């Protein structure tokens, strides 16, 4: 059974994520945290397979939570979910140990692909971010 911990302060986003995961894997166990501290607490209490972590939450930021999660359980894949597409956020997250970075514009199927990829030990960057990066690269040339 797939065990996914979702940490996002927006209840509507959590509902969307939970629904997408349930549609894909009926047996999935989905945990929800609405802030960073709650995420850390829940992460310690259950052997999650993957954490989907919002980068901007009140209290402890997603990045701070990511760093602590990687200290507590270095093998646990963490997929960052964000409305920010700037390199600073993407690179900062990957450098801090995130296994992937997904923006909230991503289609539901992409979330599932990203989870599969990070569970397989790969790094996943959402397609829209890759497109934006390659466009920016082309403009710089």
């Amino acid at each position: 059974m797939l065990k996914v911990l979702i940490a996002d302060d927006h209840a509507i986003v959590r509902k969307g994520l939970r629904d997408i995961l349930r549609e894909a894997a009926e047996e999935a166990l989905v945990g929800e945290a609405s802030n960073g501290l709650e995420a850390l607490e829940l992460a310690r209490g259950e052997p999650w397979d993957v954490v989907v972590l919002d980068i901007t939450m009140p209290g402890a930021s997603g990045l701070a939570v990511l760093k602590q999660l990687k200290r507590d359980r270095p093998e646990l894949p963490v997929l960052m979910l964000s409305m920010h597409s700037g390199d600073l956020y993407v690179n900062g997250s990957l450098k801090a140990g995130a296994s992937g970075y997904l923006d909230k514009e991503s289609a539901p199927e992409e979330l599932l692909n990203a989870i599969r990829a990070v569970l397989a030990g790969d790094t996943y960057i959402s397609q829209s971010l890759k497109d934006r990066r390659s466009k920016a690269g082309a403009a710089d040339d």
Partner: protein
Amino acid sequence: MLKVLIADDHAIVRQGLRQILTEIPELSVVGEVDNGQDALNRVRAEPWDVLVLDMSMPGRSGLDILKDVRRERPETRVLVLSMHPEDQFAVRMLKAGASGYLTKETATDELVKAVRKVLTGGRYISAALAEKLAFDVNSDTDKPLHDKLSDREFQVLRQLAAGRTVQEIADELMLSPKTISTYRARVLEKLELKSNAELIHYAIGNKLVE
């Protein structure tokens, strides 16, 4: 047959909203669009009972879309959904004709309550905002300076604070760069600021930009 149109650029948010709205059995149609212009086109093409409108989508601002919907389809109730704190934006959106204002932190049962309320012609604000508005009635001096800005000035302030150039803002709002510069000057004057750097600092400090 009640119809709700969801306008939000985040697919995951649309999915969440759609799922939450299944709790209202009277709803028979839930439509989805991912930008403001498509929202306007769908509203023009057919009548909707409620439009759930994200305030910050790429392209035209949520405030402009709201005003156009109110002008062209006054019978469509608009429930604004925002990631911004209520106290910064809600009053401006309600004055522009929104039937309700919700933040994305809103609990799902509260969202259902809000949609039900606006479907019956009522207006929805959270208990916390209602309390704040009640206490604000007699305290003009406590209001932030940006409350003095017109909707257009407020929009220009947010765009400048987001790092956009005068030309980019002019292109988006279909106005001349000279007009945008005039708005910029008025914003600086009303906020008692001197430069774009101060303006950005003000906007961040007052949580007016993401």
